[in-house]
């Protein structure tokens, strides 16, 4: 089991600070590492990298398709590229380039997509990806990860440097609720078991991890024992842990800041129905577009809350035979 912090409060740091520091450390240590951005360096604090490494930290301008192709080409020459832009552009806008120039060509690019779902907040519906993981789930052999806080971001960045393939990492730029102690290690492809329980399993990702821990506390107060898993790797999904959870608790709730029809909920349900069918209830966005507003408002508007997780957990338990 992975330890979580005793109190769930906002970190003073943004996830972007960890991403930027990690990129710099990797570029310092390995001349093959390069980083491309599409005119959003300021948004993650990496302009200093462009000054330090003008040939390896490259601002490609507002031309995301070209950026992904350039990254693919650099990897074909043996480099280890990262490419960042907002999640909306890092996914749907470049799906064909990610598919063909990177994945089909068996090349090696890490795509960083920032501002997932409601964390896009005041940028509004045009900039609010509830679907950015979906293209990556659809591309054969791609890896899709969502990090929820700074400690997790640091561990994942360390690992993906030495992985090979098309890897998408979705992260909120600003201050997340800190869930894990510094130095916590995660393994890509393995769900992180945070709490054990017998009545229901909550499988969460991103901002919904903290909400799910709160939900588990609320359920415990009502005598319901919930297992909580941070399913930060959406693909390849940890099918063994899903099956084990289905067998152990007989009911599952998923929770994501994404359209669940094409996201984590769909992935989990797919595994459950083909291994050990039990009720799966899903918390997330149900086939809607985003809209503008402060994040707190949007969390309520799209029901991305601990209360919703509690309600769905009870509903899932009620459906058990």
């Amino acid at each position: 089991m992975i330890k979580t912090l005793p109190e769930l409060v906002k970190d003073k740091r943004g996830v972007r600070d960890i991403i930027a520091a990690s990129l710099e450390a990797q570029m310092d240590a390995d001349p093959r590492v390069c980083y491309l951005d599409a005119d959003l360096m300021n948004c993650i604090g990496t302009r200093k990298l462009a000054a330090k490494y003008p040939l390896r930290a490259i601002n490609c301008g507002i031309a995301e398709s070209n950026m992904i192709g350039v990254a693919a080409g650099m990897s074909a020459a043996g480099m280890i590229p990262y490419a960042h832009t907002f999640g909306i552009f890092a996914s749907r806008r470049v799906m064909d380039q990610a598919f063909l120039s990177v994945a089909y060509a068996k090349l090696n690019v890490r795509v960083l997509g920032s501002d997932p779902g409601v964390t896009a907040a005041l940028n509004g519906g045009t900039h609010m990806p509830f679907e950015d993981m979906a293209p990556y789930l659809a591309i054969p052999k791609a890896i899709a990860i969502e990090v929820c806080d700074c400690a997790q971001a640091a561990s994942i960045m360390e690992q993906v440097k030495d992985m090979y393939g098309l890897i998408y990492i979705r992260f909120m730029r600003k201050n997340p609720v800190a869930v894990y102690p510094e130095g916590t290690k995660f393994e890509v492809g393995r769900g992180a078991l945070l709490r054990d329980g017998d009545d229901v399993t909550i499988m969460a990702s991103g901002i919904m991890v903290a909400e799910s821990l709160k939900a588990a506390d609320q359920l415990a107060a009502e005598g319901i024992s919930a297992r909580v898993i941070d399913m930060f790797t959406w693909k390849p999904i940890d099918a063994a842990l899903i099956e084990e959870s289905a067998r152990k608790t007989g009911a599952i709730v998923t929770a994501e800041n994404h359209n669940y029809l094409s996201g984590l909920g769909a992935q989990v349900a797919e595994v459950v129905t083909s291994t050990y069918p039990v009720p799966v209830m899903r918390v997330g966005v149900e086939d809607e577009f985003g809209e503008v507003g402060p994040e707190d408002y949007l969390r309520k508007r799209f029901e991305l809350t601990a209360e919703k997780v509690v309600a769905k957990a009870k509903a899932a338990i009620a459906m058990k035979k």
Partner: protein
Amino acid sequence: MRTAAELHSMKVFAEEIRIATLEEFNSLGSGHVGGAMSIVETLGVLYGGVMNINPSDPKWEDRDRLVLSKGHAGPALYATLALKGYFPKEMLSTLNKPGTDLPSHADRNHTPGIDMTTGSLGQGVSTAMGLAMAAKAMNKDYKTYLIVGDGECNEGQVWEGAQFAAHQKLDNLVLFVDWNKKQLDGLTEEISGAANFAEKFAAFGWHVQQINGHDVPSIAGAIDTALSVKGKPSCIVLDTIKGHGCTIAETVADNHSISFKPEVMNEAIEAARAVLEKVKAEVL
């Protein structure tokens, strides 16, 4: 400057590529003949002496790279690579057949000597720039050659790349536009407007030359000039004929992809052989 003997051997090689490509298509009975024929001379020059390559070590890290962004012309490149000894020539008859390593569009994971997977038009432009950028970042001397179609230039990604390469001063990159005047549905000018590629690339800050894309000495000379340009990428607009040197393709209006009977293609191959003999007999 290339010697007369070098240019002659490139001309001979180009005609050999044409024949091998037509035989390759003939083993299937159909294919993208038009766009393959229009780049034969360019391939003959590049692989006939310009590119620094080692066919017995296709993944040699310091090799020059070619990105055939108009990936549907793959069969012409396969013929070139087979003639260079990257793989046995017999393999050419497997084109597009089940289990083949010679798919319709170029694939770096299947065919020895193919440097980049292409097929979704526009994408090879960016990947080629990535190869050129990596050479700069890792202080390597290899050159990257990039062939795009005129129809392909409909794609916005081509122009994203054009701006990027000029801004990054990728003078280790040479882009060829195969201006063969036709795309799938008809004449490029009728479908997508003026084909003033020289003006367009110049406006983006490239060094530009426009030449007869079927004239070997012009191609070789233009490449040598391009390689001497510092501080900007080079564009060579190849004025070509879609289907050049293959009468059954050249005379068809819509010749992007054609089907044919073997006896008809045999005649075209015989005609190409006659051209080869004529070229071979040229007095230096």
